[in-house]
């Protein structure tokens, strides 16, 4: 692995070297390295690009890292990763994609991740997207996440895109059985002429299942963001979605929430707020000695923390 790839790995996975436990590092369209454990197996797909990650029932306190690194300009790929998480397992999965594009061609990584989460299993899924490079080539990522939660299963998903992705269309679909719960926290910051679209769709099918989808974003310069969220309450369930955006400069943000209750006991809530940084917040921090630019930076860092 070269210095550029190591720096990307640091950005998307917080790793300096190869991680502990199970991992699969994909660099420039090929497997760079892999490690499996007694409870976690990783198998290369034969019919298309991608891997199957199989986690045995009852596996506790283990983690899987599956970072993807693109440092060759113009590389475009679609990868399918399927996660099979056994009953009663409790695991952390860290995925991420880093692109370093110093050429003129578009680099693109489309990852389709499907999660099959067994009964009463718990998954924490962390996904980071990062782009860099001084070339004029665009960095494009279109992650698609499909989640199937069995009875009593729960998943916490954290997805972050702070820098360097010129265009992204993020699709997340989930269906939940009895007693399952899903929590999604998304953080996005766009600048320049970037475009980010987020599309959540959750089917609350089981009795007493719940979903909480929270998006916080900052749109700077001439960037554009679109937020769509669809929650269907098909049983006695709870659904909550929230979109909170700070808009700056000449950016544009649109939020389109959609709630559908198909059951008298479905309880669904949506909150959306879009606005610039409050003047009084800036003034308060300036009375503490910060310049206006420093105050802005503190407010945004806090907001996306």
């Amino acid at each position, binding site marked *: 692995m070269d210095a550029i790839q190591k720096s990307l790995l640091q950005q998307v996975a917080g790793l300096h070297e190869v991680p502990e436990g199970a991992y699969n590092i994909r660099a420039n369209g090929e497997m760079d390295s892999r490690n499996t454990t007694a409870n976690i197996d990783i198998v290369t797909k034969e019919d298309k690009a991608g891997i199957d990650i199989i986690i045995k029932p009852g596996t506790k306190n283990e983690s899987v890292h599956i970072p993807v690194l693109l440092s060759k300009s113009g590389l475009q790929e679609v990868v399918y990763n399927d996660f099979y998480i056994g009953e009663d397992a409790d695991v952390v999965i860290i995925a991420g994609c880093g692109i370093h594009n110093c050429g003129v061609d578009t680099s693109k990584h489309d990852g389709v991740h499907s999660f099959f989460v067994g009964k009463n299993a718990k998954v924490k899924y962390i996904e980071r997207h990062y782009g860099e490079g001084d070339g004029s080539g665009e960095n494009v990522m279109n992650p698609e996440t499909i989640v199937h939660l069995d009875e009593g299963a729960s998943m916490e998903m954290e997805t972050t895109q702070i820098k360097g992705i010129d265009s992204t269309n993020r699709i997340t679909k989930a269906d939940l059985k009895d007693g399952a719960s899903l929590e999604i926290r998304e953080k996005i910051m766009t600048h320049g002429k970037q475009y980010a679209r987020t599309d959540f769709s959750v089917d609350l099918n089981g009795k007493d299942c719940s979903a909480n989808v929270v998006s916080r974003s900052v749109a700077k310069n001439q960037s554009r963001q679109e937020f769509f969220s669809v929650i269907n309450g098909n049983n006695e369930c709870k659904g909550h979605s929230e979109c909170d955006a700070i808009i700056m400069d000449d950016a544009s943000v649109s939020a389109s929430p959609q709630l559908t209750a198909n059951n008298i006991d479905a309880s669904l809530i949506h909150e959306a707020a879009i606005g610039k940084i409050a003047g009084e917040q800036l003034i*308060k921090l300036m009375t*503490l*000695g910060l310049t206006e630019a420093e105050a802005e930076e*503190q407010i945004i860092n*806090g907001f996306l923390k």
Partner: protein
Amino acid sequence: MLELKNISYVVSENGSEKEILKDINLEIDEHFVAITGPNGGGKSTLAKIIAGIIRPTSGQILLDGEDVTECSITERANKGISFAFQQPVHFKGLTVKDLISIAAGKPMKVGEVCDILSEVGLCARDYVNREVNGSLSGGELKRIEIAMIIARATKLSLFDEPEAGIDLWSFNSLIQVFEKLRDDVHGSILIISHQERILNIADKIVVIANGHIDTVGTKAEVMPKLLNTSAECEVLKKKQRG
């Protein structure tokens, strides 16, 4: 310390001009000065002019002899002016520790934040990592606002009605915070307040009404007058006479 020379502030409202402050001349050299007077008299506007949030229409502001009239909010903050808002601001995502660190101008250790919070009567462990947002009560937000001023430890600390929006019981313990501040802080404290207990501990009381300084003096000089200043209502008088 602080000198205000011929400060006026005029706003235009529906085409006509309205004088909010008229030719204010005031010197603050004492340790603890209270500004009081009826609502709408111009007290908060004066505090904002001192902090640099509002520019006066005319007049001069001198801090230790230096003219700071043209200085920005940030420049005045760095020259030693602190300002506690009447309505504390909410911040999504910023914690009490973040704000105290910004106020102190350096990253603060949990222990240091704890020391400052305990001065304003907050149990630090519960608050250090709380977000400064609507989940905190009005009294808690006010205390954090005051804690930021303590963390800055500048030569001039301005407080705009620290009692506003606080229930009577919380205010009783807040008074002790100000009594302690008076004893501990080395610079000058300028506090806008309607509370007799605050006025009682002031070295000097300034009464501002209708945009000008009505009275300046010690507690003994000003307090008796204050109790008789509420303008009599002519209609009520006639009614009472029958």
